[in-house]
């Protein structure tokens, strides 16, 4: 386990006893990645704020929802943010055009943005590993994965948009997830 993950575990333990300082530290660590993700998925600052707000409030109110036996706190919390962002985009059909625009921003791979904020070094290391793992995917697999994850699209929508069979979308997604699993487990 990385030091950063170990520190997160301790912060989470304190959070379960209502420790606000632990909450503040987790906010300091994860507000940036969470807001960046929510912004990417929803394409709107106001909505991204709502997503991050709701995710942190849910964490405060029900920290026991995280089960340390099932993985690092980092992946639990960011997956929570992702679910909320995607659910919001789906609920708000009026956002569809905006979310498409957001999802079709310059491709993530090849992108080397100076992230808008400084972050904990261990998160920076993981971010680099994730980007490298994404870059190593065959383009057709990366495309369906990014449309699903960052575009908030269903596999049926992806099939329609790309004009490929639904089965192909499923196969490519599965292949991409297996490769990412291997790549990220090796480095995690």
């Amino acid at each position, binding site marked *: 386990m990385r030091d950063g993950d170990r520190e997160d575990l301790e912060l989470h333990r304190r959070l379960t006893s209502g420790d606000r300082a632990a909450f503040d530290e987790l906010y300091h660590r994860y507000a940036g*990645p969470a807001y960046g993700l929510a912004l990417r998925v929803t394409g709107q600052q106001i909505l991204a704020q709502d997503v991050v707000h709701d995710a942190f409030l849910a964490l405060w109110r029900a920290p026991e929802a995280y089960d340390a036996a099932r993985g690092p706190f980092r992946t639990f919390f960011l997956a929570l943010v992702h679910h909320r962002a995607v659910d919001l985009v789906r609920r708000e059909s009026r956002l569809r055009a905006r979310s498409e625009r957001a999802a079709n921003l310059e491709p993530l791979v090849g992108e080397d943005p100076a992230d*808008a904020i400084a972050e904990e070094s261990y998160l920076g290391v993981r971010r680099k590993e994730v980007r490298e793992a994404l870059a190593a995917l065959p383009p057709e697999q990366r495309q369906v994965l990014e449309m699903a994850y960052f575009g908030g699209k269903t596999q049926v929508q992806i099939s329609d948009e790309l004009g490929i069979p639904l089965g192909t979308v499923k196969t490519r997604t599965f292949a991409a997830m297996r490769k990412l*699993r291997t790549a990220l487990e090796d480095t995690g």
Partner: protein
Amino acid sequence: MTDHEAIQELLAGYVLRSLSGEDAAEADRILTDHVPGCDECRATLDAFQAVAGDLALGAPAAAPPDTLRARLRKELEPRAPSRWNAGRIVAIAASVVVVVGVGAVALTRGGGGLANGQLARADLQDVTKAAVMSDATHQPLGQATEISAPATEKLYIYGTGIPLPPTGNVYRLWAGSPDQPRYIGDFLPTDDGTLLLEVMLPASSVGALFVTVEPEGSAPGQPGDVVWDTAA
């Protein structure tokens, strides 16, 4: 492709939140029926969920506005010991396992909720999942608790220590008011007093709930005396 691979292909779509229609329903089914008992698929699910969490880092981090932190600070109420802490959930799970083991969860059949599909025994995991959602509301319904999760439109009724109604009678759940009742279904607690029910209607369409005690098998006409309600 093996059966396990077909299931894991579905799990890949599930963790990305990209399933819909029949695939989503099938994923719900295998998550309940298959995954809990299959080490390989459970490990795959956990690993895919970790990947889905890490994928967030594929998007550039961005600084949220300071107003967000201020807004959160205002809303961080001091937390009372959670009614849904892990110990309590385990305790409920244990009681439900015992009950399921003897098949004692009894919803009346004749003229009851199961017949019209509006009331069913809830899955414990679903109830706990709904209970910890940020927008979930918990309100007393007599001796039980009504748990409503607006985001998912789910509505559950949970309770322990619920007494059985007099012999030959059932509890009857209604929406609305005694003057304008809408029949939902009949139910009985388990022998150890556990209630774990799902109202099979969108939460936002239900409104206030109340419960009466009625003769088992009777037609749901005019409600009798109210024994529990959400307004109390």
